[in-house]
């Protein structure tokens, strides 16, 4: 029997994943009861009643907020592998504790770069959600408001 290369294992994984999903879905179809109703078939929207078309334009500000969110989401992903090597006892023992300081500083540099980005977005005002400003007209009527009050009084009786 010939040996599998490393890519061969990946191929096996892909095939196994497809087969697994297909088999499980097929099994589920065989044993589950099938009683659909309207509530079950509607789109899931966190318990809200779906309203209107999903194909509408979103405010562009959602993208900026999403972008900043992704930035810090990715930061967390990088923090996880860092956390495993940061507390590595063998490395710390070998370097007399220098390893801990080194990795801590490295991570502060990384977070610092991201913070500069956040500071930039903040100063630029990308984090301020626009509130609709009510514009009052600067027109001043020559008719005094007391006149309206008098008319109201006169005809309210």
């Amino acid at each position, binding site marked *: 029997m010939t040996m599998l290369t490393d*890519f061969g294992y990946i191929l096996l994984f892909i095939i196994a994943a497809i087969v697994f999903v297909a088999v499980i879905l097929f099994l589920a179809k065989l044993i589950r009861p099938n009683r659909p109703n309207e509530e079950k078939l509607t789109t899931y929207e966190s318990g809200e009643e779906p309203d209107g078309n999903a194909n509408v334009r979103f405010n562009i500000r959602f993208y900026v907020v999403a972008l900043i969110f992704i930035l810090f989401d990715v930061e967390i992903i990088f923090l996880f592998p860092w956390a495993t090597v940061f507390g590595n006892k063998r490395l710390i023992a070998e370097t007399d504790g220098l390893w801990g300081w080194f990795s801590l500083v490295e991570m502060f540099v990384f977070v610092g770069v991201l913070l*500069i980005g956040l500071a*930039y977005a903040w*100063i630029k005002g990308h984090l301020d959600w626009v509130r609709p400003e009510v514009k009052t007209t600067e027109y001043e009527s020559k008719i005094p408001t007391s006149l309206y009050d008098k008319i109201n009084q006169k005809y309210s009786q």
Partner: protein
Amino acid sequence: MNAIIALSLFGISNLFLGFLNNRKILLPATLVFILIALGLNFADWNHEYYWFNNMLKTNNLSVNFVTIILLSTFLVVAISRSFGDDDEHSHPAEYYAILLFSAVGAIMMVTFENLIMLFVGLEILSVSMYVLTGSDKRSLRSNEAALKYFLMGSFATGILLFGVALVYGATSSFDIHGIAQGVAKAKEQMGGAYGPLLYSGVILIMVGLLFKISAAPFHFWTPDVYDGAPSIFTAFMSTVVKTAGVAATYRILSISFPSVYGLWGNPLVYIVCATLIIGNITAVYQQSFKRMLAYSSISHAGYLLITVLAKRPETNSSLLFYSLAYAIATITAFAVLMVVSEAQAKNGKADESFEALNGLANNNPLLAFSLTISMLSLAGIPLTAGFFGKFFVFSDAFSNPSSLFKWILVIAILMSTVGIYYYFKPIIAAYMKKGEVAKIELSPLYKFILILTTTLTILLGLAPDLVKNIF
């Protein structure tokens, strides 16, 4: 190589300098930043260093390429005039920062030792250029150009990445010297032949890189994008991006795949011929000066690829000299185009046709003279830098023993005579056509840059050995 770190930090500080709301400070600050990076770059001279865990490598060739890239960036920033004084719609701090960031990407593309770095550098450069292409938000042409560039550019990057993956599959290495060993080993095992994995990998990498330097048949985006983008960024694209792209192509083909020359050499012959013919012939029919420069940049990609194809020991210095001559002349041409097209604007729209140049010489002798010298240099007329650029490239091709190069040379020389026709159009318009261009006020820095680039072009044309000895 500290230039990479320095430029990234300078880019960030540029972003924060923008909050001072002082346009006057940004331009000199950026120029100083680039000069500091240039100084740091020279510190690597005459050493062979590996950087960042063998990710990058600097040697004299790469230092020279980085110098050309930073010099072009310096000239482009110097003629940017702080991007006008429209506070609401132009963001000079961000533009300068992005220009510095894209210079970082370009430097990575000429110094990479690992294909990952090639990809990262290419992406930094490309993404910056997508943003800058669309920076004129209110112009429909600029938006169209940015979208086209983004869609096609990201597709090309995907193709490059696919090629990298296939080459890794064939040679099990990302390191460019490691790939060379892998290729030699694979060739030995298969008795001189090469497998389909390596074949398609090399071709796909080539396609991805040739797209970036707009060689035919991957040039279709070039005219629209160059035409639509703001002129200052077109100048940056046609010099820095082209230099970095050609350097990256040369680096990977000459270091990783010299032992399989037939594999990439044969298709490249057709690509070079197609690029020369399409670029030059189509440029003849253009009515717009800017669009003509776009096609001229396609044709110059063809000339640069000739020497990559010739694979001579002199190819290094020929590539460097040609890139330098081309960059200086192109930036001069764009500098003149920018001020003239704005002065001749009709209905608030800059006029970039040849007619806008009519009668330029009457009131603006400096602009007309700089334009003439840059056009002569691009056409390759003797006593300008462009002539020696072409001369070195052609002599590389001539000294290659293969008879195929004689035919490539015939096409190249025919096409450079075609080039003379369209490069003389703006000169004729400026000196002989009747027209009126009001006297254009230039800032002292702008005048200085025009005089500097023109002098350099003539100086390199008179004494090419000045830099040829360094390269």
